[in-house]
């Protein structure tokens, strides 16, 4: 499901960039929509890594490792996961600052690019609804 949503997000972002470029008549508008897609992509990638780490640690069995050693390993590796989880905010904020302030990208285009995930989830929900009606 996640892979499908990610693929729909990427396709939706490119389609929105093309439509916005056609509407405004500039290539910079398309770049700003794609930049918004990059922002949500960074967030998606970081959250996915952190959640995968969390699920792996909480559910996967560790053959041959005693519960005490397992807890010790989890305690040792948790700072790295926490750093990765929390620096995503700094990365997203820095990227957004660079896009909006330094590169002066179109704010409406960037907001539209960030919305591409919401659009993708809506499309997937509608598709799911449509399939369920046929079942």
């Amino acid at each position, binding site marked *: *499901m*996640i892979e499908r*949503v990610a693929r729909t997000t990427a396709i939706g972002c490119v389609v929105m960039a093309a439509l916005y470029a056609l509407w405004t008549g500039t290539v910079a508008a398309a770049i700003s929509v794609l930049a918004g897609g990059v*922002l*949500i992509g960074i*967030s*998606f990638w970081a*959250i*996915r890594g952190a*959640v*995968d780490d*969390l*699920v792996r640690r*909480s*559910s996967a069995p560790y053959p041959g490792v005693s519960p005490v050693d397992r807890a010790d390993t989890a305690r040792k590796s948790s700072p790295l996961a926490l750093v990765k989880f929390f620096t995503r905010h700094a990365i*997203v*904020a820095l990227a*957004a*600052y660079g896009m*909006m*302030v330094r590169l*002066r990208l179109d*704010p*409406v285009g*960037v*907001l539209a690019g*960030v*919305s591409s*995930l*919401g659009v993708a*989830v*809506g499309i997937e929900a*509608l598709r799911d*609804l449509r399939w369920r*009606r046929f079942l």
Partner: protein
Amino acid sequence: MEAFSVRTSRLLLCLMFGFLVLGLASPVYAQEAAAGAADSGLVQWSIITAGFALAIAAAGAALGQGRAVASASEAIARNPGAAGEIRGALILGLVLIESLVIYVLLVSLILFFIKPFGG
């Protein structure tokens, strides 16, 4: 019953499209309104509002993400076999919450640095 549900889903689709069109059109009205109101008090208040908006959005998102992660961890601990599906729902939920914070971050950056109301 099925015709009613088809009609309802069409109505919902039309409503969503209408909101999308209104959302795309609103910055135009905002620019028109902003042209006449370039005053220092407005700039000051817009910056204060941006700061508070970012703080409130971050706090709300932190609470929401914390609840989502806590519920997902509990669900995985209760039923490890459903970890894959819970993981998918958790990632989607977290990213959707995060996207709202990114919206507010972008609006705050616009108000802080681009200053659409002058100043």
